[in-house]
């Protein structure tokens, strides 16, 4: 129920004083309400829940975290093997 999916903003419009955007999720695009993310611009990724963007994905933070996760491999030789499932 609380799922939100990341999508990329392609266009932004004002529709009856409501800020809406065309957002791309993989191969499909949908209209999304952008009222809760006034800072979002074209090209940004937003997390979308029931048709509303609830956050702008922090690209720098995501990149940094991912690099930390990937670099865990450097320690791999020192670690015991993962338990068999």
């Amino acid at each position: 129920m609380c799922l939100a999916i990341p999508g990329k903003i392609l266009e932004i419009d004002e529709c009856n004083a409501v800020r809406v955007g065309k957002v791309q999720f993989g191969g499909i695009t949908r209209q999304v309400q952008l009222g809760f993310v006034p800072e979002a611009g074209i090209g940004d990724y937003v997390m979308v829940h029931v048709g509303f963007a609830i956050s702008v994905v922090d690209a720098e933070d995501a990149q940094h975290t991912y690099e930390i996760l990937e670099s865990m491999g450097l320690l791999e030789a020192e670690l015991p093997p993962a338990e068999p499932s």
Partner: protein
Amino acid sequence: MKYIDEYRDREIAHKLLAKVAQRAQHPWVLMEICGGQTHTIMRYGLDELLPRGIELVHGPGCPVCVTPLEMIDKAVALASRPDVILVSYGDMLRVPGSKSDLLGIKAQGGDIRVVYSPVEAVKIAQTNPQRQVVFFAIGFETTAPPNAMAVWQARQLGVKNFSVLVSHVIVPPAIRLLLNQPGNRVQGFIAPGHVCTVMGAGEYKELVREFCIPIVIGGFEPVDLLQAVLMLVEQLEDGRAELENQYSRSVLVEGNVPARRIIDEVFEVCDRKWRGIGVIPQSGYRLRSAFAAFDAERKFEMENAGVEESAECISALVLQGRKKPPDCPAFAVRCTPQTPLGAPMVSSEGACAAYYQYRRHALPH
């Protein structure tokens, strides 16, 4: 898809699992709150990949599951009226009420429409001015801003035939209740990432201080959840109790300020009954009196009859993480997603449905 695929990376997941195995010197019981997180854990079998001593128990974070029977009955009563179009999120249609579910009423000719977004419900009201349109507004804090926005927009647009049946719940009071229960086993929490995207970290910092228990705000993909487990295990092994944010690509400390503002404008905090748990003080939202004209419970006369749950269903214990679904004698025998005895078997995010979908063939009988 960007921001999904990389968090399903098998190699990174295995590195995280190895790191958890290395760090975990003691057994620990951790709870993920959100039903979406439960679903990911079962779908990818994360609980079975973790070292044996790390037990994941599943929290009450499925709004469909905790919506009280009385509310389902009210929605059923409204949907049975010829002057009403009942609009709902799809998950609610098969939730059993005391006599019928919404799908049964739809089969008998009730006008029930499923929407993805609450703004669609306002549009249905605009295009059907001769009918009363009631939106069944359920959810946690994540869904509260969109639902509140629908009510706010209806008022702006002067849509008088629109109202909402509100059964909103909020997470922190439920965590407090679980931690105050005698016999609580949970030693660390994975907090719900999208609830915190809206509400921020403040309430969870308070819980950490109050109960001296580690909490990590976690995302929804397998790598997110394994990283959150690792962060909790590291805290527990080091004897720390802190609030940490694994899902920092979406969660800001202050949350989403405009979204919180619309919640505050439209809703106020109230006591709320949770299915299977009972009334939790200050654990829900209701409409503020300024929006009373949009309150379906005021607009329509409805019975407030107390109703009994199935005696056999142990969902109360499952929703509190005290029992696992296969502990129930009715599980996958008399209770299946086609014939659910209780709500956790209905929603795909309910713990019972997740076990049914991914584990029932592996269970000894």
